[in-house]
């Protein structure tokens, strides 16, 4: 990663920044749905904290996306005034929370990716990207520690907690591949040294995830991981539309108001 980042197609960079921001926004939204409904008080606190961190990352990534686009859109404009077709998050983060075990498993699978991604982005050829990554990395490293620790404890807990975590893993597995399927945008970013090649991240993710799963006495599914793709290009699941209807209501119902 040391090529000329200024030569990169700004449209592609905008798209890529939206991917980073939308992943954080939508996972943050899902996490925030737990507010007050967690299984123990410590978990209520931790989930709110995770959501809070992710919303903070969203502000940075979408803020930069707006700058790069140069059309005057703010992070809030991008978060609240795009419809589903314009969202660029992977499908994994928009799936419903399910029980707390599913919520933690999904977070773990995404955190492992997020952690490796940000670790690589700290060395981005684009200084603005590197700066955001450095800020976010500390929090995401903590999130990964927490979610992987919980996966281990629940996987190796009771028979019931083990089975629920195994089922959660099977459920989300076919959605994990999308994180690593590179398209023209990802390739342009890698070429410009802005972001790492996704194949690199994938192999590190494999290692991280399989170590944790082994410790958790969980079995890696044999099913294809790349069944559910398209979110990065704006083709989502049916769930995203409902998230946006709720999330964007006030901005849509009271256009131009300040809050």
């Amino acid at each position, binding site marked *: 990663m040391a090529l000329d980042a200024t030569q990169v197609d700004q449209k592609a960079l905008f798209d890529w920044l939206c991917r980073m921001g939308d992943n954080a926004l939508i996972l943050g939204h899902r996490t925030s749905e737990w507010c007050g409904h967690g*299984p123990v*008080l410590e978990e*209520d*606190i931790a989930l709110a904290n995770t959501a809070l961190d992710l919303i903070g990352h969203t502000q940075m990534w*979408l803020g930069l996306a707006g700058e790069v686009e140069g059309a005057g859109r703010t992070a809030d404009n991008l*978060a609240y005034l795009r419809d589903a077709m314009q969202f660029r998050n992977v499908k994994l983060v928009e799936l419903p929370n399910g029980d707390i075990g599913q919520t933690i498993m999904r977070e773990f699978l995404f955190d492992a990716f997020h952690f490796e991604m940000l670790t690589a982005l700290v060395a981005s050829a684009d200084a603005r990207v590197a700066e955001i990554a450095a800020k976010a990395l500390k929090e995401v490293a903590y999130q990964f520690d927490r979610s992987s620790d919980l996966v281990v404890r629940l996987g190796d*807990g009771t028979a019931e907690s083990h089975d629920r975590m195994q089922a959660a893993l099977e459920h989300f597995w076919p959605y994990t591949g999308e994180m690593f399927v590179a398209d023209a945008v990802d390739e342009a970013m890698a070429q410009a040294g802005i972001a790492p090649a996704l194949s690199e991240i994938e192999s590190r993710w494999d290692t991280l995830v399989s170590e944790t799963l082994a410790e958790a006495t969980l079995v890696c599914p044999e099913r294809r991981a790349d069944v559910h793709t398209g979110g990065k290009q704006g083709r989502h699941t049916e769930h995203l539309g409902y998230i946006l209807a709720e*999330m964007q209501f006030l901005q849509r119902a009271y256009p131009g108001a300040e809050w």
Partner: protein
Amino acid sequence: PEELAAFQARIDRGERIEPKEWMPEGYRKTLIRQIGQHAHSEIVGQLPEGNWVTRAPTLERKAILLAKVQDEAGHGLYLYSACETLGVSRDELFEKLHSGAMKYSSIFNYPTLTWADMGAVGWLVDGAAIMNQVPLQRTSYGPYARAMIRICKEESFHQRQGYSVMMKMAQGTEAQKAMAQDALNRFWYPALMMFGPSDAESVHSEQNMAWKIKINSNDELRQRFVNETVPQAHYLGLTVPDENLKFNEETGNWDFSQPDWTEFFEVLKGNGPCNEERLGARRKAWDDGEWFRDGLSAYAEKSAARRAAVAAE
């Protein structure tokens, strides 16, 4: 009785009572009820605000609201810990909350219907809570007083944030102003109820005051709250929903109407707008979380056994 006199003398001298020291059973019980109820209120209090987290209108507002709800869970944590120093476990307290044996503040049985309610809750509900809690920083039981110091600091921050939401709404579009006024209309009397009925009607007040578990009378605190809040409402350009509200030049207080105490007792009885939903949500969270808690316990036991086995080798 000798012990009792010595205990009262310590309190009168302004000493703090600490967990392992002798205390009358009534003192302990009253504290457990009061701190426990306060802890429960923090936990249940997450719900009305949690109701708008997914619909917060900007990323910044969403972050602020999340931080606030997180703080409330944190307050719950301190307070349950304070309660545990009195010999009752967090799980026992939860059980009493879920069975209805212990209460939480009635204010959380009112719904949050518009975004302006996020302002009103912060401004009025946290405002009333602070008014109740500031004197409790000087309460006689050490762990409670220290928890209160920490909590008050954060609550006053929350109150300012609530007021700022209200300000934006009150200075916003016509629709926003209408929401702000409506939120004040709905939360004004329930906020006044937060101080409890007039002390004349309370049997325990005197003893609790002697023990410095209670520092001021309910009416005194309510008046202080009205005095402080009315000018803020005026500054916002909002109308307090009380035709009898009037500044009394003689007393220097704002005269105001009492809330509808029949409503208060109905809500206490379970007939408030959200009683079933709030308690139902907490019960569901607890029941759904059972396998999670059991899983963590089982892991902890296994780990301990493994460590013991390694140590024994």
